[in-house]
């Protein structure tokens, strides 16, 4: 079970984590992209953090919709529409809820994946955020089905996200600006997969604390 308060704490914590990792993500993006991923994600989530108090009394669906709209209108680049659509899909999937059962958390994860696939037309192995999000989603669903607690399932999901993130290193990018590098994109970790991993890791830490 994940409460609304935990969702709010998670999103606030993501703003802190992205601020701390701004330069790290930007350095990763400079290697294969255009050196703005950390800057953009930080700008978006700082804005999210300022918006959250105004929706603290709303349901989780409404909160996630606010996150979505804020990211769409402040991040830019490819990350804005991708993360924006991801949270938008999730907000619809959990509309009206003030707490999420493990099954609803699984639905939320699934909506995240569907949002990315719909907007970015990406497939697993294209060297994108999907490469950490998708294994995390599968792992969470399997762990819950096997009877794990929410925190345990999230811990396993985060481990899968980390593994997926690391597996982007040898891949040749098929999407985004890194795809223009062709073979030269291999050997670098995908910054989108990294930011997704950080966001999921923060969710686990929030629920676990």
């Amino acid at each position, binding site marked *: 079970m994940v409460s609304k308060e935990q969702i709010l704490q998670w999103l606030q914590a993501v703003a802190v984590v992205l601020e701390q990792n701004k330069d790290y993500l930007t350095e990763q993006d400079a290697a294969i992209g255009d*050196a703005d991923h950390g800057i953009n994600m930080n700008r978006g989530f700082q804005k999210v953090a300022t918006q959250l108090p105004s929706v603290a009394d709303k349901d989780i669906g409404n909160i996630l919709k606010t996150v979505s709209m804020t990211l769409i209108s402040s991040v*830019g*680049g490819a990350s804005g529409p991708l993360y924006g659509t991801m949270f938008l899909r999730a907000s619809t999937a959990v509309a009206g809820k003030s707490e999420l059962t493990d099954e609803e958390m699984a639905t939320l994860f699934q909506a995240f994946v569907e949002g990315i696939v719909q907007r970015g037309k990406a497939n697993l192995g294209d060297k994108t955020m999907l490469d950490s999000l998708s294994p995390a989603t599968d792992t969470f669903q399997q762990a819950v089905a096997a009877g794990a607690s929410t925190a345990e399932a999230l811990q396993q999901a985060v481990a899968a996200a980390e593994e997926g993130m690391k597996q982007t290193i040898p891949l040749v990018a098929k999407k985004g600006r890194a795809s*223009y*590098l062709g073979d030269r994109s291999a050997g670098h970790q995908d910054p989108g997969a990294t930011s997704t991993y950080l966001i999921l890791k923060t969710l686990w830490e929030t629920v676990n604390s």
Partner: protein
Amino acid sequence: MKKLINNSDNVVRESLEGMAAAHPDLIKVHFDPHFIYRVEAPIPGKVALISGGGSGHEPMHGGFVGLGMLDAACPGEVFTSPTPDQMLEAAKMVTGGAGVLNIVKNYSGDVMNFEMAAELAHSEGISVLNILIDDDIAVKDSLYTQGRRGVGATVLAEKICGAAAQQGYDLTQVANLCRQVNLNGRSMGMALTSCTVPAKGSPTFSLGDDEIESGIGIHGEPGRQRMSLKSADEITEMLAVSIIEDRNYTRTVREWDADKGEWVEQELIDPAFESGDRVLAFVNSMGGTPLSELYIVYRKLAEICEKKKLQIVRNLIGPYITSLDMQGCSITLLKLDDEMIQLWDAPVKTPALRWGI
């Protein structure tokens, strides 16, 4: 980093404030969300042209807002595509009831944000078409991938389609023309140095004193190949021959169907250049290369075109689609027909491009 800035967070806003102050006769600037628009907009009955992209490519796109070119430009953060709310507000401001054409460079961020903007405008009853520009031959052929980037042909499409809209073409006609300009234009660029993004503060990539990067895009993203420094003639030959000898290129693009309100896919093919073609030759500075060096490039380009039996009937030389302070250049060749020549020559009055008035 040495930059003529006050605070890296305020680069885009302060630059826009300066632009508004410099050109009050041509443009106005709207803040939050940011967009630059024609002082006369909206113009009833005229198709409105909107483009946009990351900042750092000046004068593109804001410098091309005005008579005979764009009605609005949406600048994102430096090298970051603008957001859909900017494009939607710009469309609402400049629409004259004849529809809006968004000219979109093929970069995933720009494409996705403009797709969302088209959907939003459609839901508000504004007829919108998006045309993708993907003229950069440095990127490999591909059918269902990100495909080629949009670079120099964007400037040429904005000028030619801007003139067409000014002359009363309807939305479908302007969109078809824009697609034709894109299909007949090819570009390739190279870098002598990296650029420095103000918010990052250090060069995006490092190049040795004796190295160049060929096939770069316009965001400081590294190019396709690193090689040893060559003479201006050798670099020009490398770029020009790649462009001229590029064969038919096929890709599938998603375009918005304004009537149905949905995305449709269609296959488009660039025709190859042929002996006897009339072309527009565009030699562009990436921002840090002076005009004198561009003319050295043009000198060789003209010689190569003559040898390949391409007649240069129009040209454009200067910094028009730049990459901050990067040294380097790009070459664009556009195959022209009589209609495009007439539209190219038509009057234009914008901050960065003006003639015929």
